[in-house]
């Protein structure tokens, strides 16, 4: 199976490449754009990106395997990232994480059996005055309680 981005993403990628003095420097933003559209970065997409930027495939793999936000396998339709660093731990993050795992019936960094929601723990999200905090597909939610967490899940399920 080969990979090809949609026309609008391809246009965006060309603009990204043009904004750097060296083509290969656009690697992070290009991978980001690919992942935004496809949900993950497949081996075929890796090869496409390498060719596009004129770099070796291993250089793409090195970067993909280093940064935690890049996904080399498909995840759920929605990703919930719960912060587990110090300020959030002090505010009860562990309880929220346990509650969500129980509610979604998933293990550490797992995806629900219907493939809808992936739940992962992350380090500091930089929202410490709103601890405990989490992000749902990149959008911040703070001062999370069991009740507000349950409401967020209900909302996600209703929107499906």
């Amino acid at each position: 199976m080969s990979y090809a981005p949609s026309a609008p993403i391809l246009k965006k990628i060309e603009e990204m490449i043009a904004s750097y003095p060296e083509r290969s420097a656009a690697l992070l933003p290009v991978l980001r754009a690919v992942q935004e559209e496809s949900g993950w970065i497949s081996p075929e997409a890796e090869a496409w990106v390498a060719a596009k930027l004129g770099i070796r495939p291993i250089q793409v793999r090195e970067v993909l395997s280093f940064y935690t936000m890049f996904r080399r396998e498909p995840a759920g339709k929605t990703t919930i990232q719960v912060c587990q660093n110090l300020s959030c731990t002090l505010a009860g993050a562990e309880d929220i994480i346990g509650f969500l795992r129980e509610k979604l019936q998933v293990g550490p960094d797992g995806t629900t059996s219907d493939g809808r929601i992936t739940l992962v723990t992350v380090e500091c999200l930089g929202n410490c005055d709103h601890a405990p905090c989490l992000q749902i597909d990149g959008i911040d939610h703070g001062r999370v309680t069991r009740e507000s967490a349950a409401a967020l899940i209900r909302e996600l399920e209703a929107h499906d």
Partner: protein
Amino acid sequence: MIEDAVRLIPADDSSWRLEAYLRRGGYEAARKAVTSMVPQDVIAEVRRAGLRGRGGAGFPAGLKWSFVPQGGTAPKYLCVNADEGEPGTFKDRAILVRNPHQLLEGLIIAAFGVGIGQAFIYVRGEYASIAGRLEEALAEACAKGFLGRGIFGSDFNLEVVVHFGAGAYICGEETALLESVEGRRGQPRLKPPFPAVVGLFRSPTVINNVETLSNIPSIIGRGADWFIARGLPKDGGTRIFGVSGAVRRPGLYELPVGTPLRAIIETHAGGPPDGLAIKAVVPGGLSAPVLRPDELDVPMDFDSLARAGSMLGSAGVIVIGDRTPILDVLEVMARFYAHESCGQCTPCRLGTSWIHKIVSRMAAGKGQRGDLDLILDLASGMRGRTLCPMGDAAAMPIHAIISKFRNELERTVVP
């Protein structure tokens, strides 16, 4: 109280908009610098102001700028460090959301002073959803002729690109950030050469934190003396102290450099909630060695914190209440540094993961006699033995937790 016109984080909800910024006198300092000052005078004024880097290291910003070779036709770059990843730190986020134009104005002045034509703003990937205002601000500044070609009708040109990270604490280290902008793993470079001479794309490069640059417009607009008067002679201005953990009013407090830590916690953040007392305080982001309740009268400036055996770092204050087992704190630290070590230097790669294994074992109730000394030994083996400051950043806070709370750890850990 600090008047809204000079606050880094204005209270007004519409503060992020261009019109609001212009009403506060925005872009006048950049206009003054570009149209009526020579670059050397811009650098000299910032040096005189005693502005120290707000990212964590506290290096004098003007001095950093002065290391870049002057003149020449080769490109020079500016990187704005918005990779705010030090746990307990959330101040740059607030500037990006509430005052992006002030950051851009500082960036314009810095670039003019150093002779830079292209800037990259490195925003951590986790902040992508809040970066919309920054991107809008960029577009507005370009449309007004504050950025782009022929800025303020001069022959000064400046292009700005927003570059997103993708989840790696280490990219806040300046040479790792450069590697990341160039499209590689964020693995720090050996120094020297320093980025001021050989940096991004092998060219002279300045890397400044968001809050550092956001102070520049006031320094140029109101002068170095005004800035020094708001802080200390060798550490001028205000700091945005982020307070989280066991306090009544967690949040950001912009106060003069040198404000005592106890006042920040008690007066501004309201102290611990009823029924809780303070057990320990992390004064400057997770990597800053912890302080005990009897050490909280320290003034919050770089030199005073260093004398107290800790560091001001990113000024992220985390208050730990007396009901929190100190082992929980140690566990978070051990996990975090093991997760974030980039893997390049053996002492950090092995040291952080070994410490994490021992602490996890302790947390599972299987602590062994000698564990604490083994951790201390591993921590001291990391110090000073890595390419970048991360080895020290991991070793120092872990060492402080064990040496200051040894009794509690021994009681709970050793069978």
